[in-house]
């Protein structure tokens, strides 16, 4: 049994590596396909090991297209700008290393916290849930206030309202399948708009430095690993700390989502929904197995990410930057069209316009996260239905 689980974990790592490298590809697109192939797995534990290792590997590897090609997922979108900035400074490898450190640090802390407080999570979740909309609203207010000058504050309000309205109509309508909707939404705001602006100045990606230096102090590194998503969104200033925090948040989110089946008996992600179907009665030792696979897969995924993170920028540096950017833009548009059709192109046109507007107004790109924050406030406060009724959708 152990050898088979190991084998399926390695298979998951291989598939996770390939899918992680495909720009804009989300793991949720693959999960229904895997669930249709359950007959290939002799035991539900093999399938669980495969899905868990696939998910964990995909999280780490998908930073490569996010940082180097500006192709974000729903939770790597904010990493595109700082990652791309470091790439243009010749520090693309450092950007990848920072995401790895953030992810691994957060993985260890999350596993320790889950082990200690697993019995209290359910109560904490029930206690916090009625107030989540207020917490998100406070984050939005802090984001606006962080701009300091009146002109920029007004610009931030405009971008949050525009992207918020954009999020409400795009996320609630059936224009694009739900599992792919974030691809055109976030690629335009954070990816394409960044590439279009950076295309103006640079003609070449500088030679990438491969030294082991991390230009961040140990205290900042530790603080960034410990910081939550709220702080990560608000800080936004120091590129390196931000990348570490964001990667940490993403890994913690996915690990807690996987373990949420046991902790709060509610699936929180595509992978955990699949596991709920495979193992409806999750026992303590099933969770131990999942944690073991998470640790094993993340260890291997880190090595693969570092290996690819060193080689891919070298390859990109040899190419003409403008042609590379143009090829990436065309490739993204083709992928969006194939995955989401004509409506996906309409969504990416709008999201790129909002992203470019934000950049030309000279305010932080994180305001574009209004496309997720505003719909979340409406959903958690129960006002989503009222707003959509008013809009007639």
């Amino acid at each position, binding site marked *: 049994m152990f050898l088979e689980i190991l084998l399926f974990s390695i298979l998951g790592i291989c598939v996770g590596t390939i899918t992680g490298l495909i720009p804009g590809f989300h793991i*949720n697109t693959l999960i229904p396909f895997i669930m249709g192939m359950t007959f290939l797995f002799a035991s539900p534990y093999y399938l669980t090991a495969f899905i868990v290792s696939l998910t964990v590997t995909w999280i780490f590897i998908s930073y490569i297209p996010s940082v180097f090609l500006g192709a974000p997922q729903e939770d790597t979108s904010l990493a595109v700008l700082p990652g791309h900035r470091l790439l243009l400074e010749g520090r693309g490898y450092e950007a990848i290393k920072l995401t790895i450190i953030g992810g691994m640090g957060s993985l260890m802390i999350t596993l320790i916290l889950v082990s200690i407080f697993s019995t209290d999570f359910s109560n904490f979740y029930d206690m916090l849930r009625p107030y989540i909309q207020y917490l998100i609203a406070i984050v939005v207010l802090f984001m606006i206030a962080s701009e300091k000058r009146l002109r920029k504050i007004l610009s931030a309000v405009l971008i949050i309202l*525009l992207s918020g*309205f*954009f999020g409400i*109509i*795009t*996320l*609630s*309508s*059936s*224009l694009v*399948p*739900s*599992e792919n909707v974030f691809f055109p939404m976030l690629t335009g705001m954070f990816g394409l708009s960044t590439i279009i602006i950076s295309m103006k100045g640079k003609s070449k990606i500088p030679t990438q430095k491969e030294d082991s230096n991390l230009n961040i102090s140990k205290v900042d590194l530790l603080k960034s690993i410990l910081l939550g998503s709220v702080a990560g969104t608000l800080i936004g200033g120091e590129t390196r700390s931000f990348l570490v925090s964001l990667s940490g948040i993403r890994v913690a989110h996915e690990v807690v989502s996987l373990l949420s089946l046991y902790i*709060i008996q*509610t*699936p*929180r*992600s*595509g992978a955990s*929904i699949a596991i709920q179907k495979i193992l409806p009665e999750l026992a303590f030792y099933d969770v131990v197995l999942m944690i073991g696979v998470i640790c094993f897969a993340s260890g291997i995924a880190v090595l693969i990410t570092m290996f690819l993170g060193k080689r891919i920028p070298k390859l990109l540096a040899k190419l003409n930057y403008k042609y590379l950017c143009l090829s990436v833009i065309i490739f993204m548009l083709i992928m969006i069209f194939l995955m989401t059709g004509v*409506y996906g192109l*309409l*969504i990416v*046109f*709008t*999201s790129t*316009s*909002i992203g*470019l*507007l934000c950049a*030309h*107004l000279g305010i932080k790109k994180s305001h574009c996260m209004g496309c997720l924050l505003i*719909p979340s406030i*409406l*959903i958690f406060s*129960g006002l*989503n*239905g009222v707003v*959509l*009724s008013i*809009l*007639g*959708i």
Partner: protein
Amino acid sequence: MDKKNILIFWFLFTSFLGLILIYVAALNLQPVKIEVSQITSELIGRSVLTSGKIVQKTPNSAGHLFLMISDDKSKIQVPIFASLMNDLKKNNITENDFKINKLISVNGLVGEYRGQLQILPRKVSDINLK
């Protein structure tokens, strides 16, 4: 007007144009038809169209009606709030028309209440008794 301001106005115009086009498309699009068993928390906040048998019916003193519908594989709650019940009455649909085992088609937003998924119909045309 300098080049920077022209670009700001241009992107403001394209953003609004895109939003208007998406809004018009969303208004004219039918919701996705989906089985009850396929409705997961990933769909919270999205509009779906589903159908199933009424397996449970719980009226409320405030005028709300809570239905549980099933497609044999899975169940989901459909709360019909008092305001919508009043609108249904105006269209000659009363609480008695929601009979157990009767087929119903519901169009609404996927939501979550106390950890349970539900579909929230918002207007008379969102409910279709067969």
